[in-house]
């Protein structure tokens, strides 16, 4: 789960990490008063107007504007609030800006990149810092890996002060700034573990002209599996950032991701679901979605699955691929037939059932009075689905 910059900064502030502070505004009528409040409270004539969307690349997309005067701030805010902001991460339609974060402007001497995330290969959290702040870290990692300093953290010991010092030295800091950065790193790690984050990235962390170390941005990602014990974090979810159909699917306990093709997919298991999408593509078609109905593929899940898939108007055919281990295929077959009838489905439905009672299931499908196309294998199913989608 992701959150907005202003929410991430509020978390950092709670953990005593100094931030570039400000206020959020959602209404055009409140823009001027909010800007004035920021100017006054943070003693900063210049402000930065920042669009609050989850996607990265906001600055390049025109969603972050330095505004030296009140007039320019108001103009920038009016332009950005409500716009469809397009960045390399939003897709061509962009993301509507519903919130602005008006912050103080700072005089920056140096910019750093700092982040904590999981190193999957070692099974440990890794703290990474680089003097190449503001840049895309992937690029730095590719071209000048020596400019990234890394510290792996023992989960039973937590981050030790020598490690925080090593990171601060790695950024070439001295004196008060060195001490301040050490504190930032220790507090960041605390924040990361205590909130069950999977990434905390500050890019850039800046050293100001007057020697302060301050977080200018904050990117958080949280572990969905830990949200049961992170109620405050879970409440930060912004439903406007989610695809409405994906949100609805999650309420049915279905794992759905919309794609651009026209062959709808309903599969049990994430790996098999991906493999089904892949083989549709190899058969010359395009998958319309990823949909994992989980282990218990009963009539209810099948029906809900159909409902979700049918919200996508591009869908021209639906493939159901169930490998029944514990779940019995004859029950799935009956569920599919019932769901097709109840929903008055008029799209071609290609069904491949394998595993427990698969033979009975095929007989049930063949005998039914609904137009279901049975398939013998995953390849057969993909070919039939692509043909059906092309012809309908």
């Amino acid at each position, binding site marked *: 789960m992701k959150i907005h910059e202003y929410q991430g900064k509020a978390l950092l502030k709670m953990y005593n990490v100094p931030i570039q502070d400000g206020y959020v505004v959602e209404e055009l009528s409140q823009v001027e008063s909010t800007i004035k409040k920021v100017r006054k409270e943070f003693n900063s004539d210049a402000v930065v107007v920042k669009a609050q969307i989850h996607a990265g690349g906001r600055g390049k997309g025109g969603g972050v504007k330095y505004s030296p005067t009140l007039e320019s701030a108001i103009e920038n805010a009016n332009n950005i609030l409500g716009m469809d902001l397009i960045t390399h991460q939003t897709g061509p339609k962009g993301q509507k800006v519903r919130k602005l974060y008006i912050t103080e402007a700072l005089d920056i001497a140096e910019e750093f990149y700092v982040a904590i995330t999981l190193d999957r290969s070692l*099974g440990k959290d890794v703290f990474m810092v680089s003097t190449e702040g503001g840049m895309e870290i992937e690029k730095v990692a590719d071209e000048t890996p020596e400019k990234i300093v890394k510290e792996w953290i023992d989960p039973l010991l937590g981050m030790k002060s020598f490690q925080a010092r090593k990171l601060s030295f790695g950024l070439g800091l001295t004196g008060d700034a060195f001490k301040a950065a050490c504190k930032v790193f220790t507090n960041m790690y605390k924040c990361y573990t205590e909130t069950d984050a999977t990434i905390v990235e500050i890019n850039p962390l800046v050293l100001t002209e007057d020697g302060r170390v301050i977080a200018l941005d904050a990117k958080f990602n949280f572990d969905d*599996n830990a949200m049961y014990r992170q109620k405050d974090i879970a409440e930060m979810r912004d439903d406007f950032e989610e695809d409405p159909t994906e949100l609805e699917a999650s309420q049915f306990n279905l794992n759905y991701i919309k794609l651009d093709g026209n062959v709808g997919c309903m599969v049990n298991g994430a790996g098999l679901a991906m493999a089904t999408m892949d083989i549709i593509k190899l058969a010359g078609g395009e998958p319309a979605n990823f949909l994992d109905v989980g282990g218990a593929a009963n009539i209810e899940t099948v029906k809900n699955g159909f409902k979700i898939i049918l919200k996508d108007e591009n869908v021209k055919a639906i493939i159901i691929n169930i490998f029944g281990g*514990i779940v019995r295929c004859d029950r799935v077959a009956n569920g599919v037939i019932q769901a097709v009838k109840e929903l008055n489905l008029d799209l071609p439905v290609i069904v491949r059932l394998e595993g427990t009672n698969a033979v009975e299931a095929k007989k049930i499908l063949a005998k039914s009075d609904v137009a279901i196309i049975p398939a013998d294998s995953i*390849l057969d199913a993909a070919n039939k689905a692509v043909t059906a989608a092309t012809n309908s």
Partner: protein
Amino acid sequence: MSILVNKNSRVVVQGITGSEGTFHSTQMLEYGTNIVAGVTPGKGGQTALDDSVPVYNSVEDAKNEAGANTSIIFVPPPFAAEAIIEASYAGMDLIVCITEGIPVQDMVKVKRVIDENGTRLIGPNCPGIITVDECKLGIMPGFICKKGNIGVISKSGTLTYEAIGQLVSNGMGQTTALGIGGDPIIGTDMRDALELFEADPETEGIVLIGEIGGQMEIEAARWAKDNVSKPIVGFIAGQTAPPGRRMGHAGAIVSGGDDTAVSKMRIMKKCGIDVCESVAEIGQKMKAALVQEAEAIA
């Protein structure tokens, strides 16, 4: 022969009295798995599965009193990490954790503990392990397997069944099938599993099924290049997965670099693995690889 489990494994089920635990323990018993004990804290002294299995308060008791040496865990996510740690400290030779949804921060600590204790863990978030006709530890449908000479390693559940189904329909059975799990942190990775199958004299070929996300397939392939003599057939799910989206498994997300399906497949090929473009080719490719191997020897 086989890897990790066989008819001599003495199994304790942690969470045996829960609904999942009861259901799958019954299935495992039917398959022939030697379940000697169950653990549910507070229910020690009772019995489970129609009086056939004694229940203990701790894994340690199950070891001391019933001689358990292998644990399988069906415990809800908030308590699963502790269940693994308990089994590790009780000295289990092997722990299989089926539980899906354990927080990463919990698993980071678990990993540290099992590494220090030298415990072999499979999973979490996995279908388990099955040594055909001997021992099933997990939720796989045993009847789809056939005894034979292929080892199966996979991150995913139903995709493992698909591979097994194709092997059987192409006339090949399995020694052991191992679902390693789809989480970012797991106990036994692909490299470990390859090493075990390479050392097993009965295994003649290996099917390796991965997916997008992480570097595990690549690390395993690079290791296999110099250390595995048996033919490996590989497949990576998620060629059509868009970057930045988590595809079901917590670990299945393309986040940049070499973790796309295409680059994993490219590197696996370079390392000498016979990589399937299509999931439907797994059975045929393994068959062809065995024929080629036999001809090379002849």
